[in-house]
């Protein structure tokens, strides 16, 4: 059938990809350029993450681990930044460890954004005394399991300093003494860390997750193995709201609104088209009979 002869119903179901892509670009770009500030509520799972940080004991150790590719990590960047602002405001020792090369760079970028560096104190926290970045460690689950028993397994930090010389390293101890374990990544490493850290050592755990992996890892939250979990860019927006500032997470929430609405509109158009064509065919069949 030529395009001219197509009925409106058929056309609804056959929108050319180029027009579809143009609409997607507009729907993503407009809320980024002009944020609408759509109101949103804070979910219980995100609130639980916030509350766990609030409950941290003085001098407690917070281990922030992650492993993922940069493209997926970008979804939890806003959440990680808001989370770091929160954790750094507490009287705790912070340890960063990465199980992928991208993640090591990612946490560094998130810290740079907040102005956290090893050269100058941030919120009174000094590198080596109050926090340390152990960088990328190969070996995945085996390395994480060993790190849970002996933090000095990592001999040099991300900046090349011997860990023996860093006072904060002496306070890390075994995983059962950690005040909070943060899995700031999505994917299979979350499952691994539940089995290697959270379950055997009963360490309080929270997950900063992407929206795509959120349903897969939800059983760990409902079972109480992880105390809380944030969901992608919306989780970032929620954490920003809890911390009382408006960041890029809020723009992300607007983008989510528009893209999700567009998805629903497209589903509706495709189904109207299908239903219309079905009725037309039935009528045609009845006329012929």
């Amino acid at each position, binding site marked *: 059938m030529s395009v001219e002869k197509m009925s409106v119903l058929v056309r609804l179901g056959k929108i050319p990809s180029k027009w579809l892509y143009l609409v997607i670009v507009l729907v993503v770009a407009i809320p980024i350029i002009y944020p609408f500030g759509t109101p949103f509520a804070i979910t219980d799972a995100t609130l639980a993450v916030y509350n766990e940080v609030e409950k941290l004991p003085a001098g407690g150790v917070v281990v922030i681990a992650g492993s993922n590719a*940069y493209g997926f990590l970008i979804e939890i960047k806003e959440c990680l930044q808001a989370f770091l602002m929160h954790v750094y405001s507490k009287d705790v020792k912070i340890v960063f460890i990465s199980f992928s090369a991208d993640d090591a760079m990612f946490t560094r970028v998130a810290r740079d954004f907040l102005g956290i560096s090893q050269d100058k104190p941030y919120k009174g926290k000094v590198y080596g005394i109050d926090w340390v970045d152990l960088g990328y460690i190969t070996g995945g689950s085996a*390395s994480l399991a060993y790190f849970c028993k002996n933090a000095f397994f990592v001999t040099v930090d991300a*900046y090349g300093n011997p860990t023996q010389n860093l006072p904060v390293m002496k306070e890390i101890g075994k995983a059962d003494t950690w005040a909070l374990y943060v899995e700031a990544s999505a994917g299979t490493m979350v499952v691994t860390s539940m089995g290697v850290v959270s379950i055997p050592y009963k360490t309080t755990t929270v997950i900063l997750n992407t929206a795509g992996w959120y349903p897969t890892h939800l059983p760990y939250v*409902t079972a109480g193995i992880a105390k809380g979990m944030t969901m992608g860019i919306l989780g970032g927006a929620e954490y920003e709201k809890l911390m009382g500032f408006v960041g890029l997470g809020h723009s992300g929430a607007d983008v989510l609104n528009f893209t999700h609405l567009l998805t629903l509109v497209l589903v509706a158009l495709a*189904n109207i088209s299908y239903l219309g064509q079905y009725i037309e065919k039935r009528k045609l069949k009845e006329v012929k009979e």
Partner: protein
Amino acid sequence: MALRFLKRREIPISIAAICIIIILLGYFFVISELSAAASKAQLTSSIIGATAGFVGLINVTFAMGRRIVRRQPGHWYFATWSLIITYATIALGLGYGPFSTIYIKYFLSSQAPLYSAMTGLLIFFLLGAVYRAFVVRSLEALFLIIPGCIILLGNAPIGQIISPVIPQISLWILNIPNNAAARGMTIGTGIGTVALGVRILIGRERIGAGE
């Protein structure tokens, strides 16, 4: 003769079996010697993991080098570029350190935007696929599409604005039917992993032995 003996598949299978037994026993029984041996096995695994990077590098060099030498049409220039990038990254990392300003700038202007762009492109394919596939052609499709749409609305703030019930229904779908399926998958994966371990233990699994 010695080389022939080393190539026997029983050797890697035995090593794997011994490591599995040590780690399993070290997990279930509190015996200091066993725990120490399990820790040693985990540490060795980490070291092997690090060494695997070098093996990968050699492998990539040979694979790409072959394409360049053979001037494989449509491939050799990509292979050349791949090798240049690989060795430039290594040189920068070794020369300046992975947390030096130059290395971070290099990463943030290459890997980070490329990977982010690649992930970002998914939205075009996903929305295109949803438009063409989310059509109620059967009753089963209806049962898939309705919860899908509710979760879509529940995951965006707009769902709360339309009706406060939508996020609740979305959460119920995620917590009850989704949880049931996800738990099934997790338990299935766990049992599968145990089965694989047992197969390695009894020498039935030969992939690790290079077969």
